[in-house]
């Protein structure tokens, strides 16, 4: 269990070693506050959607899931992508309404980032990895939490570095996107070194 969590958070960090959610990672990292908001939103959505998709995959889509209804040959795994993206979009929508009603401060803090998360490939990617690695329900909860925290840590650190870099002299061609890539590369390098230290 702890293994799954640590691997998801550090060793196989979705942003830095699988490049998932890069578009948002690069676009929404100008300020630490917004990056933290987005990271928080991602953790929440990840913890809900990965287990939800796990249940849907096990009880509705995998081969033989409909045996109780007299259809043991039915295999709906090809509907996985549509089902998962539907769940993610629906979850984000429900979460948005729920937060608006019960935790308005959090809703205001997350703002525009909540709907944007629907098309963040870190979410769909985590669900797909969960299926590919055959995680159980409990493992999928831990995996969702680990990937969420890992991604949030990465974007907050990255935003903090970028805030500092704002006052430095960068060659014209590297301004903006170019330097962002190089920084992410260095972060990824550091992370894989850290992961190597902890590897059993």
């Amino acid at each position, binding site marked *: 269990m702890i293994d799954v969590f640590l691997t998801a958070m550090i060793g196989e960090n979705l942003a*830095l*070693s*699988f*490049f*998932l*959610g*890069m*578009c948002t990672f*690069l*676009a929404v990292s100008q300020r630490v506050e917004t990056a933290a908001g987005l990271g928080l939103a991602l953790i929440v959505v990840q913890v809900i959607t990965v287990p939800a998709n796990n249940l849907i995959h096990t009880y509705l889509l995998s081969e033989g899931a409909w045996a109780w209804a007299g259809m043991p040959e039915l295999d709906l795994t*090809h*509907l*996985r*992508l*549509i089902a998962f*993206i539907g769940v993610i*979009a629906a979850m984000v929508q429900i979460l948005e309404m729920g937060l608006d009603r019960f935790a308005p401060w959090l809703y205001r803090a997350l703002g525009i980032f909540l709907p944007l998360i*629907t*098309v*963040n*490939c870190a*979410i*769909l*990617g985590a669900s*797909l*990895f969960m299926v*590919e690695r055959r995680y159980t329900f409990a493992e999928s909860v831990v995996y969702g939490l680990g990937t969420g925290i890992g991604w949030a840590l990465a974007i907050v650190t990255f935003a903090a570095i970028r805030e500092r870099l*704002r*006052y*430095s*002299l*960068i*060659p*014209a*061609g*590297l*301004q*903006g*996107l*170019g*330097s*962002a*890539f*190089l920084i*992410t*590369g*260095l972060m*990824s*390098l550091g992370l*894989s070194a850290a992961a190597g230290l902890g590897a059993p």
Partner: protein
Amino acid sequence: MTRLLDRLTRPLIDENPVTLQILGICSALAVTTTLATALTMSLALTVVICLSATLISLIRNHIPQSVRLIIQITIISALVIVMDGLLRAFAYEMSQRLSVFVGLIVTNCLVMGRAEAFAMRHPPGASFADALGNGLGYSLILIVVGTLREGLGLGTILAVPLAPMLGLEGFTPIALMQRAPAAFFILGLLIWALRAWRPTQVETPEFRVTGHEEDA
């Protein structure tokens, strides 16, 4: 005709989706460990983006504004499922190597971005040209990065060893090139090179450092 051609060629260098519009970066980095995976991914993405842009553009006048995102996602994911099935059927080993990244074309912001920004407002012909141009622009970056990473990291191109061909017998492959950080470095340096060549793409800095006038 020239406008169509312009739509097709502009995204190749001048408005490249990866290096300028920041679209579709996740997969551009992940599948470039070898040239073969980069080529397969480019092909899959180009087919999906062309078909989805054309289809969405065909029904653009019948899509209600409030549910357009869901409709776009459904069309795109249906196409991706077909593409994934085709890959599994005819290139099983390749589909295993690409892992989840074919499925992730669904949330590739390049496909969604072009559908939302272009196909929703233009006729099918123009949308197709725009999608093809963007698909090729994306492919161009993937091929360059894939060639560099495979060539330097494994010493091969498309699994053909390079060293005997170039007379570099003592060449030791750089293992780092196969790891994640190298993808970031190569893309960052590529952007630098591209912007040195086309200075109009340079982003303006948020602040300017201007010496110490107040000291004087």
